[in-house]
């Protein structure tokens, strides 16, 4: 292992310990690690955005003599300049235009995608014969169809949750909570694997206690 490699491992190990020390309490070591992390990452993203957007997506395309769509990046450039107008009081209102463009364009682009994945596919998959197959199949089908229906009732905002409607909504929130419980356990396990990765680094790469 060369000097810089050893130096890198020590630095990474100390920064890891610094961040983990937050579990005990806020301390100077954590503050130093936090400042390093925030400062370096902010600088990294600033440079990444500059080279990826201003240089690669704008400058290279605009300056390419063979480029067929060399005028398109100018739209983004002008919208970017409009964002900066908020620095001047008199024309600051112009900065709302690019925001409106971004929000409107994104909503339009994703509308159909979300409508298909979050609505159409879900409804189609919920139309099942509930009393078909084995006992396990019947339970599964009832959970899928009934759970989706009751979940929809819970998210229906035009009617108070009272009476039968309220009962269905309660079943809906129970289904949601059961799903959250399963999801919680699953995600915690994946986070444990992240922690094991860090411990593996500390005890293996750094302290050499495990091979």
């Amino acid at each position, binding site marked *: 292992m060369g000097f810089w490699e050893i130096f890198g491992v020590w630095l990474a190990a100390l920064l890891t310990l610094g961040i983990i020390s937050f579990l005990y309490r806020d301390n100077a070591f*954590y503050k130093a690690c936090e400042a390093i992390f925030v400062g370096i990452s902010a600088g990294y993203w600033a440079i990444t955005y500059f080279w990826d957007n201003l240089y690669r997506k704008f400058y290279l395309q605009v300056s390419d003599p063979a480029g067929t769509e060399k005028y398109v990046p100018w739209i983004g450039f002008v919208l970017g300049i409009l964002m900066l107008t908020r620095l001047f009081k008199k024309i600051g209102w112009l900065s709302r235009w690019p925001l409106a463009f971004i929000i409107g364009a994104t909503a339009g682009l994703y509308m159909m995608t979300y409508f298909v994945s979050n609505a159409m596919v879900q409804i189609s998959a919920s139309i099942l014969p509930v009393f078909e197959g084995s006992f396990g199949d019947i339970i599964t089908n009832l959970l899928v169809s009934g759970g989706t229906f009751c979940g929809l009732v819970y998210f229906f905002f035009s009617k108070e949750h009272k009476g039968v409607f309220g009962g269905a909504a309660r079943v809906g929130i129970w289904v949601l909570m059961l799903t959250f419980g399963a999801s919680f356990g699953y995600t915690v396990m994946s986070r444990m694997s992240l922690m094991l990765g860090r411990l593996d680094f500390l005890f293996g790469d750094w302290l050499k206690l495990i091979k």
Partner: protein
Amino acid sequence: MRSRRPPIAAFVPSLFFLSLIPFIFLTAVAQSDLETGENIAFAPPEPPTGVIALDHVYDCGEMIDISWTLSAADTAGGPVTGYEIFRAEADSFVSVSVLPLGTNTYSDEKIIAGTPYRYRVAALYTGGAVLSEITPPVSAGTEIINWNLLNLFVIGLFVCGAVIYYITHAKRGKKLFIRKIAGLEAIDEAIGRATEMGRPILFVPGINDMDDVQTIAGITILGKVAQVVAAYDIKINMPVSRSLVMTTARETIKEAYIGAGRPDAYNDDMVRYVTDEQFGYVAAVDGVMVREKPATCFYLGAFFAESLILAETGNSIGAIQIAGTAQPAQLPFFVAACDYTLIGEELFAASAYLSNEPKQLGSLKGQDVGKFVAMAAIIIGVIAATLAEFGAGSFFVELSDIMHKLFTVEN
């Protein structure tokens, strides 16, 4: 004693056995050939028949679909080893793809729209290939309307129509009923607590940009929170991870302060950019929490792996916490660690409820119409499918099929 020579008869079995050796050897060779499939010359198999090349429907001239009837010799252990697709733009055919045994369709994507192509399919076998007939020329074209998506269009039009109807309705000043959402009632309570304790409020709008509808909903709720904050002169602290979110949040809080008649109390430092890096941002927000000890924490927007870190830190300082996100994987953490959680669409409903804007209220009501359609479709579809399963009649079979087709999207 004189030695006796063995009689000739004694050699007969040995001679017989020796004479069998070449036979056994040849049989073994022949058998090994059969097993390895080498050096066997099959007669040419029958070629693929009925080759059809058609323009792929509902695309922008990107694909030609070829189909054929398998060679009659395409059987397990038969001579056919696969198929090869040939394409000709002029006279000479070039190989496009080699496909495994039993395949009878192929989509050619390496084409130029509008150029006529002819195709032929070869059945490959050990001794070579047998070619099919050549298809007539076919070219790929663009279809402006995808009729496969007609159902999506009709349902989308219906829901959008309902949204527009209710927005118009709300703009005319008609009252639209939206039921109360439990988490919303807690907002005033949470701000009141911060006022009593004289401690700041922390507002985290998630880590996505302004192109995420969850961030927009979070910022809308921020507008309402900022109005109360301005009225009670509480400190609000909002670290953000996106520059556009910073700009929008500052605008929103500024407007709230102007609306409350206290423009001088507004300060740009209420909203601070930290970093775009997810965990760098989390480290900074955690630091803010333990140092400033806000009385109330709002987490409203799009969250990812940082959700539990933030909510647990907020919990450790004893803050009242209100969260809201439409990220299914993060909701369990907020539900477990926060006092109130706006689940999924409740976040958007809360945004509409608080803003009282005709557009948001009308949109929410229109979406409720969509949900009603979904509920009705599930009930009708499930009943029809179940009765069809019990043999209640062809009507229910057809109804079940219709309901499935209505909500199935084919590209």
